[in-house]
Every structure is written in C-alpha cells, then in structure tokens.
C-alpha cells in the first residue's frame, strides 16, 4: 500500500537529509527534536506547565514533550480528558510541534485538526529503524513528507 521510504531514499542534493512518505491526518508543518514513546499517550497525564509526563510507569515518565516532534503508537484515555490535557499544554505553549502515530483514534484526530497540530500516520517501518530521540525532524503533513536531518554526519 504505502511505499514508505521516498523513492531513492535520500532527497537529491543533500546527503544529510532523508525523507519518508507519510499519510496526512491533520495538516500543517512542524519541526523540532524527536521524542519517541513506546507507550500510548494520554495528554491529561502531563504537567501543562512543563510538558513533563507524570503518568507512573509510562515510557516517558519524567520527560518533557514540550515542543518536541512526538513519535508514539497513538492516544489513549477517555473521550474527554485527552482533549483537556492537550488543550492545557497548548495554552501553556508546551504542546508537541507535530505528532507521528501508528493507530489513529477520533479524539486525537479531532484535537489535532481543531488545535492545528500536524498529525501523520502510515510511515514505513524503515523510518522507525532510522529515527531516534533528539534527531532533528521536519513534518510536512500537507505534502505527506517527513524529513530527518542527520546531524551526526
């Protein structure tokens, strides 16, 4: 279905940039450092003043999601608290810059559209092999393109 890695893998002319196709859910452009969560995220379980995840035993417990490009499996939690959590983060300027997920749910999709946080899914597995925390990443949801910049080179 989805071909994943952009044809040819690397974007022409810049060996330090590699792009992957993705599927746009909520449009927009967001960039920043990567933060990966193996666990589903309930934004109600963060401190809106710091962006810190406060959920006990969560993969990101004690880490801040503020202004990160967040890579996680999907949202969780009851229909309303999820929206409340994200709303408070946005208000305090500590929301993620973009979100890359595997399985969408109506709550997260609606929040992303209304509050204009780029949200994409259907990224090739190869992307998950290449990406790691703190790498600089650009998510162009409108073009369906994720670009990793290799700042280790």
């Amino acid at each position, binding site marked *: 279905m989805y071909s994943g890695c952009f044809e040819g893998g690397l974007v022409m002319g810049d060996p330090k940039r590699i792009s992957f196709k993705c599927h746009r859910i909520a449009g927009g452009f967001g960039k920043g450092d990567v933060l990966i969560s193996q666990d589903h995220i309930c934004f109600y379980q963060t401190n809106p003043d710091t962006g810190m995840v406060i959920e006990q035993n969560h993969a990101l417990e004690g880490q801040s999601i503020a202004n990160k490009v967040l890579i996680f499996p999907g949202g969780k939690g009851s229909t309303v608290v999820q929206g409340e959590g994200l709303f*408070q983060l946005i208000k305090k300027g500590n929301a993620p810059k973009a979100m890359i997920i595997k399985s969408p749910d109506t709550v997260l*999709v*609606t929040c992303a559209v*209304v509050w204009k946080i780029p949200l994409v899914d259907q990224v090739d597995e190869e992307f998950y092999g290449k990406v790691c925390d703190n790498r600089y990443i650009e998510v162009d949801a409108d073009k369906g393109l994720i670009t990793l910049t290799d700042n280790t080179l």
Partner: protein
Amino acid sequence: MLSGDLGPGIAKAMEIQLAIGEAFGAERMVEITRAHEAFYASESCTWFLELFADLNARCRVPTTCNPIFDDSYFDRMGKPIPKEDVFYARRTREARKKIGIIPNECCTPYLQDNVPAKGEIIAFSESNATCYANSICGARSHRESANSALAAAVTGRVPLYGLLLKENRAGDILIKIDANLKDDFDYHLLGYTLGKEVGADIPIFTEMSSCPPSPEELISLGAELATSGTISMYHIVGLTPEAPDVETALNGKAPKKRMTVTESMLRKTQTAMSCESGEIDFVMFGCPHYTLNQIRDAARLLEGKKISKDVDLWILTSAATKECAEHAGYLQVINKAGGHIISATCSDQICWERLYRGKVGITDSPKAAYYNFPRGIKFVLRRRRECIQAALKGGW
C-alpha cells in the same frame, strides 16, 4: 459543506470529519439520524462548544448530552461546590443551548430521550451509550469522542468505516459464563472482568444465564466492558438483534478464541477494586444513571429506615426518571430515609472530588470506582442491598 456555503460552523465540523474519515480510510460520508455528546465541565469542553456556538452552528439531527453536575442541588443541600468549578458547568450548558442540544443530561439516552432503532446510523459518544446502542438497539455508531459526536451532530453525517460496516460488527471471542449472575451487580463485575481480557475485540456470549438479562443488567455489562476495555459492541446469542445464532454473530468466521468466566474471577475483580475500610462516608448509585426499577428497589430497601447521620446516599438519574420516582412516591421514601436523588449529575465530575477527596464511598459500579480513584476517593464494591445496609449502619 466544507466550502462554507452552509455556514462556517458546518465547514469547521466537516473539516474535522474529513480528517477522521481520512485517518480511518473512509470512502464517503453517510447521514445520521441522531447524536449524543459527552462534554462536561472543563476548559477544553467549554472552548470546543463555544467555538461552534460562536460560528452559529446548529444540530441538524436530534442531539442529547451527558450529565455534568447540578450545582443548585448541592447548594440547596448545604454542600456548595466552589464557584470556579461551577463556572465551566454553566458555560457548557449555555453553549449547548445555543447549538440546539437537548439538555436531557443523562448518560442512558437510549432508554428514553434518544432511542435508535435497529440499523439506524447514529453518532453516540459516552461509551456505555455507544455500547448499548450498537449491541442492544442494533443501531450503528462509532465509539465517538465528545467532539467528533458534536461535529457529526452539526453536519448530520459521519464518515463510513468501522462499526458502521456489517463485516466489522461480527464477534471475535466466544464467552461462556460459569457463574451465577444474580443481579445487575454481577453484570457490572462480569463486564469489568471481561473488558480487561478482551481489549477491543467483540465478545459473543453463547450462554448467559437461565433467564434473559434485564435492561439494567445489559446497561451494567456494556458500561463496564467499555470502561476496562475499549469494547463498543457485544452479542448475546438468541437475545441481541445481530446474534440469532452463533454462526451469524461470528459472520461465518472462526472465533479468535474461547473464554469461560467463572464466579471466582468475578469475586477477584470485586476484591481488587474494593478498599478495605470498614467505615464509609457515602453511597453512590447511578453509574450509569439508575432506571426507575433500580430506584424502586432502593426505595423498598430504605422504606421506614434511617440512613446513618455520618453517611450521604446519592442516587444519580435523569430528570425524567426523578420526576417519575416522585410521582411513584419512591423519591419521598428515599428522602425520608435521608437519601438523595440527584438529576443532571454524573459520577465522574469535579463535584465529588470537592465533597469526598480522601473519603471512602460504597457503590455497585466498578466504573464509578475506577473514574473516582484519580480524584482521591476510594470505594468499596458491593451489591445494592449491601450498600444500603452499609448506609444504615455507617459501615459494612
């Protein structure tokens, strides 16, 4: 709609729904007949509702809503809720009125205010309502969030995917019950126990018990399946509309697995969710909202008795049911015993935290216990009769 030719409110709602449709690979939109939204008193809920109210959006289909809390009742009873909490409840109510949402404030709309028939496509949020509408009414609804349900109410449409399609409504897991399900409490425990095991699959109950379950028992079962799991539908062979027999319920597929639920599993859930306190501060009934039958049963148990002065007893229900209970005399019996029937109030609201943080309640609903745990309220889980005995005694 998207272009704004029908107004900016509809355009905004359609923008949201297109994204949802795209996310789930829906090919088109389909019309709905009714909706139910589950907003409550919080800043984001108010923000979302006011966004649509300010864009002059109006519901295109009959749309009911979940309860918040009736601050005026708490005031009258000398238990005032802080102003800042009431602020969002009032704004939520005002925005609902502007959008044309029916202010029934009840979490069981499928019983009296917003009843879908078999095959209707609807947009219900409030997970117990989604589950009942899909399973018992045979209507078709996504597990809508409050905001996606509102968008659907405004456009009168939903994207076509998931549980709206017949092939996705088939059961996955065959469940046998090896326990004596005596009343709605046992169905609460059954639902909560299974929800954890089943996750998002659709359970098929092949044999339930000797007699068909009552509506109250079915409400309890669905509410808990949707609390500890993300289940939005179940089948009971020979009872629910899409399960005349096992083969039909499975839609010709082989079951993913088979499970037996035993009495000891139910008791284990009860123990695990109960705190050990012998003292209780309050009783909470009505998660989901109590029906008239359940209120009658509570009134019978309270008739001529007096609840301990250290214990509050709350029965949560719809305004319509409360009025009926008054006509029937149940309300007077319960009030005389020292208990309350409160309408337009949900068990999972800030008001309970204000009243009972650090205290212990007793309830027949694992769902009420689960959602109040983060509010610093502990619960003992017992049958209705035992809860009332505890209220009379001041402990159990």
